């Protein structure tokens, strides 16, 4: 039925992926269907002016009068980054450290599969899962956009999805790397979550506190969201996200190859 660690993992992920993809996709669709009434709202500018300045900055509310700005405010500034972070971190921690803690890894590793190859299959499964999730949500939003004649350029939506997908992937790979290093799901989840929360706090604080602003640039959230992300094209800074994940893996893999495997 499955011949590789990768195909076994994708089999395990199938229901979860479908559930995440459809439920998040439906939220995206709902937002898209709300857009025409928002667009046609009289005095929208005046209504938005009543929002506190900090909210307007953080959620980029001024731009809400365009469909790209609307999606950025409603989906891409918090909801989708948050969901991709949660998905990436929980799955990244579960795929290796979770199995190790549950005692499932031992019989797989003694089949004489090289440990690094095993880990790379898990990396591939995590990556494909996150990409599949992004594609599903993209399709929901894109089709809904066509249905309401939102006039949203496909490339702009794709850029937004790429940014949150990379954000989830970066933290998912970080969680997996910590799991490979320690064998502990708690550590894997903890370190990656701390990085995500820290990144968000740094990004948000940078918006309001001038002294923090120069440090925003190290925040993964900044890398993901600063361009828009919908409507900002595909800036090179996007690539920093997968790159950080790959570096974390490169540090973890040799150690995983040599360390004791827990029961």
């Amino acid at each position, binding site marked *: *039925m*499955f*011949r*590789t*660690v990768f195909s*076994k993992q994708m089999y*395990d992920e199938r229901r979860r992926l479908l559930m995440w993809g459809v439920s998040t996709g439906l939220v995206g669709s709902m937002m898209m269907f709300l857009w025409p009434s928002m667009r046609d709202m009289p005095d929208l500018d005046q209504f938005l002016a009543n929002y506190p300045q900090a909210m307007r900055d953080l959620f980029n509310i001024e731009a809400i009068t365009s469909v790209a700005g609307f999606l950025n405010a409603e989906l891409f500034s918090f909801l989708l980054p948050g969901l991709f972070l949660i998905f990436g971190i929980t799955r990244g921690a579960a795929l290796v450290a979770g199995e190790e803690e*549950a*005692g*499932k890894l*031992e*019989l*797989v*590793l*003694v*089949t*004489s*599969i*090289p440990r690094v190859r095993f880990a790379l299959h898990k990396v591939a499964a995590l990556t494909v899962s996150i990409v599949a999730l992004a594609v599903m949500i993209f399709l929901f939003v894109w089709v809904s956009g066509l249905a309401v004649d939102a006039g949203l350029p496909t490339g702009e939506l794709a850029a937004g999805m790429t940014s949150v997908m990379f954000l989830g992937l970066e933290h998912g790979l970080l969680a997996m790397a910590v799991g490979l290093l320690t064998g502990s799901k708690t550590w894997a989840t903890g370190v990656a979550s701390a990085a995500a929360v820290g990144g968000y706090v740094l990004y948000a604080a940078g918006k309001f506190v001038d002294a923090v602003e120069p440090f925003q640039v190290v925040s993964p959230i900044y890398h993901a969201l600063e361009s828009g992300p919908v409507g900002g094209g595909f800036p090179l800074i996007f690539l920093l996200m997968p790159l950080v994940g790959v570096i974390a893996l490169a540090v973890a893999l040799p150690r995983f190859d*040599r*360390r*004791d*495997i827990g*029961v």
Partner: protein
Amino acid sequence: MDGKAISETVTLDPTSVSDPASAAIRTVALSKTYGRTIGLDSVDLTVPEGLVFGYLGPNGAGKTTTIRLLMGLLRPSAGSATVLGLDVATNRERVQAQVGYLPGDFAAYPDLTGMQYLTYLGELRGGVDRAHITGLSERLGLDLTKKVGSLSHGNRQKVGLVQAFMHSPPLLVLDEPSSGLDPLVQREFLSMVREARAAGRTVFLSSHILAEVEAVADSVGILREGRLVIVESVESLRKKALRRLELTFEREVPAEALAAVAGVKDIQVDNRTALLIVEGSTAELISVAAPHGVANVRTLEAGLEQIFLSFYGEED
């Protein structure tokens, strides 16, 4: 019986010190520490090919640590382990490919059926004959269509056993293999072990239950607090075993004559009954006692428990 524990490794079995090249398992000063805790303390062990070797010791003695070191799941803190002529540290995958391993405690993927799980592990090994999986499962009475998550402990253990035997490896390393098996299945398992030996394969099995090892093993190693205290053939252990014998006489107990018999370690007389502790054969004792009119003989079969006692001392 002086009650003294033997602290040095004693290798009395001539087959266990044979040419290392033909050894299925060989460890040299193999040690494992966890922080400040010593899991295994400088174990030198040689298991010749084609033998069933019982690895005995109480829980926490270091049996599982040894086994996980042999499988390359742990790295030794000091010393080395060689399996089928290959150093485990540098040839981990090649060793694993040739060993069938049953962990003492393992979790399978609960949402897979037994067959899905076993074929998956088989695929990772490069393919295993499904008919062989089915055959082994039928012997053990395992239903392969059920999800592993719904199986009882005993049935999960069967999945583990099939997994260990399914690629017909030259060496089987089994950690507490009969845990959770009912007596009939246990008997079937023991015959699988004997068949493996008959086919020239080596079986290394650990247990804290002495009787099950005694039933199948050629040699045993006894581990205590991370140290290997003895390696010896089951046969010669039995010869050295202390037996308890209760002789009831029709007349007075010939205590002096009995005490003079070689092998008699202790004699206690209570009225017309003598309670004797004898090392090895009791034949001479019986022939000395017989002319004095023996009314009844009660003997306690030498189990490895008693052998344990002779090495560990009565205080254990």
